[in-house]
């Protein structure tokens, strides 16, 4: 997206088309390439059902990755998101099972609110430890990753936590499986989240500050930006995104376990980087991130639909494809 740069007369726009756009377009080119490969591998691949399955499935990672785009743009990193999903989902289901509120829809609304609050608090905790505690985000969130995962294991006693009331399950199910005008709800949620995120990142003061903090903290400080506040806020946004992902995750299987969300943090970060945001911080590319999440999910999908790859080698081929996708991107970006 180039929203941030199109402030200008014609000459400017032309130039930015060349330089900036090719870089932003690169992930989409890689996506297109994958779609072509997929279509060659299996005719079912390109069917609406399959593509909408893939897009729907990618919702969790995509939404989490949108949050990660903020954290990474601000020059930080959050490794705890995967276990945060498990933790927040556990609390949500436990609350739904607690029967604190009799009316099912009211209960559901309360559970949703609680989830969003818990998610933000988890994010805030990460933010506080990294900024006030001055611990490298990698280590700080590796620590909280252990903490959230441990708490989940403890809450579930190692097993699964399942929504008990069938009525509630039925009420909640459409949030993942339903569709509006033929478009699955999760896809709509991805779109909504991304639009809001793009607006915040490119069109608000806060978004500008995120970029500044991520590209040079000293400059940000000398410009009167509350660096720690901006970073903390990015972690909170990440927490909120995790909570939204949980809101979609719980209705899918109606349950969660200690293994929920394992390695999702790496997938989210990969989506962000494949989407064109640099891990060093600075300019974030929300739309690229979404594209990155699709790419990751598509790669797995193509593997499974193809008939000629040993199941043992899937991991190896997946790795190769990611590297090749990045190479394609780079060479496109260098063309500019």
């Amino acid at each position, binding site marked *: 997206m180039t929203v941030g740069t199109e402030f200008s007369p014609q000459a400017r726009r032309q130039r930015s088309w060349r*330089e900036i756009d090719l870089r932003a377009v690169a992930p989409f080119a890689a996506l297109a390439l994958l779609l072509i490969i997929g279509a060659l591998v299996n005719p079912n691949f390109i069917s609406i059902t399959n593509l909408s399955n893939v897009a729907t499935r990618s919702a969790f990672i995509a939404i989490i990755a949108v949050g990660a785009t903020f954290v990474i743009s601000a020059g930080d990193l959050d490794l705890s998101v995967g276990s945060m999903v498990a933790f927040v989902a556990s609390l949500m289901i436990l609350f739904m099972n607690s029967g604190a509120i009799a009316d099912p829809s009211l209960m559901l609304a309360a559970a949703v609110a609680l989830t969003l609050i818990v998610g933000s608090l988890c994010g805030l905790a990460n933010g506080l430890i990294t900024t006030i505690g001055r611990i490298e985000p990698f280590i700080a969130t590796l620590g909280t990753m252990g903490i959230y995962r441990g708490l989940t294991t403890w809450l579930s006693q190692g097993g699964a936590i399942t929504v008990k009331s069938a009525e509630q399950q039925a009420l909640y199910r459409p949030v993942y499986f339903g569709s509006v005008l033929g478009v699955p709800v999760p896809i709509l949620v991805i779109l909504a989240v991304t639009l809001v995120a793009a607006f915040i990142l490119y069109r608000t*003061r806060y978004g500008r500050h995120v970029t500044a903090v991520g590209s040079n903290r000293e400059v940000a400080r000398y410009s009167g930006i509350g660096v720690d506040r901006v970073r903390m806020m990015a972690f909170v946004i990440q927490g909120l995104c995790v909570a939204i992902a949980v809101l979609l995750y719980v209705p899918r299987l109606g349950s969660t376990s200690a293994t929920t969300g394992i390695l999702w943090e790496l997938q989210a970060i990969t989506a962000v980087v494949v989407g064109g945001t640099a891990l060093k911080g600075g300019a974030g590319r929300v739309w690229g991130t979404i594209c990155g999440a699709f790419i990751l999910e598509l790669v797995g999908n193509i593997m499974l639909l193809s008939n000629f790859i040993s199941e043992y080698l899937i991991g190896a081929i997946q790795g190769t494809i990611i590297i090749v996708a990045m190479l394609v991107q780079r060479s496109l970006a260098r063309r500019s």
Partner: protein
Amino acid sequence: MSGVPEGAKAPVLAAERVSKSFGEVQVLFSVDFDVRRGEVHALMGENGAGKSTLVKILSGFEQPTSGRILLDGDPVTMPANGAAEALGVVLIHQEFNLADHLTVSESLFLGREITRFGVLDKRSMKRQTRLILDQLGTSIHEDALISSLTVAEKQMVEIAKAISRDARVIFMDEPTAVLSRQETDILFGQVRRLRAQGTSFVFVSHKLDEVMELTDRVTVLRDGQWVKTAPTSVLDGEAIAQLMVGRELSTLYPAKHEPNVDEEVVLSVERLTTGYVRDASFDLRRGEVLGFSGLIGSGRTELMEAVAGLRPRLAGDVRIRGRSIASSDFRGAAREGLAYMTKDRKGCGLLLGEGMAVNLTLQSIERHVRNGYLDTRSEAQAVDRARRRFDIRVRDENVRAGRMSGGNQQKLLLAKIMELEPGIIIIDEPTRGIDVGTKQQIYHFIAALAREGRSIIVVSSEMTEIIGLCTRVAVMREGRIAGMLEGEDVNEQVIMRYAAGLSKAADEPLAARA
């Protein structure tokens, strides 16, 4: 000027019809330039004229788009990335080229470490570093981390690095921009010593007096075109300035405008103490231009950052229009209308990876928020306004700040601060790397601000600038305000005496001499 033997006048290094384009933007147009053995050759021109680019091409850091480079008369392709040092061609970059995690001696020998049987010979590298630093008369410790040095100290390290090479040609891109007169004199001493041994120098500077004093020949560039090369002795400052700007310059400094004694005191600092600065007290009146002078490391920057709330104070009070500002409360001070312009434009001033708009409005973004979202059109207007007001010259509107010429970066930084429309402005080194034409504009700009009733503190290592602009001057020495000069006392001799510790403020005990 010096006794250069006749036979040595052959060019060592020369550029022949060199052109350079970045993408579609051409910045050098068929320039001819040559350096002779044992001469100091000044390269002058407005900001963005292409001086740094030419110097980089001659030292291999950029490759020309067309044209030839001749070394000892033979065409060569300059090896890239500093490898030209092997040919005896060394460049002191306009922007620092030092890694934060290394020490001074490690930086000096980076890429050409001394080893014995494969093991680093740290002892001998340190010894040699000390030797060179002593030659330069600086007490920077050879084991100090680069990240702990001030801007001026880093510049001295860069100079040390260059003269420690066995160079035939040394390019110096604005080496004195951050140096005080004292350090500059030492540097010139070294240049003269090496020149006598046959080393050639190319000296890029905006300081006309230094050029007149040191150099043998002058080349002037304008808008990427060669304008003139002539012996310094046949030119005077005015002539050079005219060649650069292409028009006649009126007086550099505007008329001083002294505020009334009963003008309101807008900023008052009382017994401010930080790690290094002790007991600094001063007042600033409405419409006043107050200068801060002193030697490198005398604590001016630290004091001003503490006043602005960018550094914690250990003791003391800062009041703006009577209202007390808490320690480290940068935003509180900003709300009261105080703005601070850093002199470290690369490290603290500009986001080098972003364009002009983002940088310009970074601190004043509120002005461009409409109904909660950013109005990029109004930002673009601000950019256009700032470019006109500060004469920011770029050939490509979307260029990243890091690729703008040094002087234009400085103007952008100044513009960024002025976007705040502050009532009190602290400017640290306002004209660092700025050409004479623009300098004059900036001086008049400062004077106009003062006339409007704003108050300005100018921290500068350029004595003439302080004297030309300020009605009152504080001289700092070793973390204290050694003297507050007014009226007749604002002249070079008196300031120097205070800065060097030969005169002291009445209430201060005699400082022990080291």
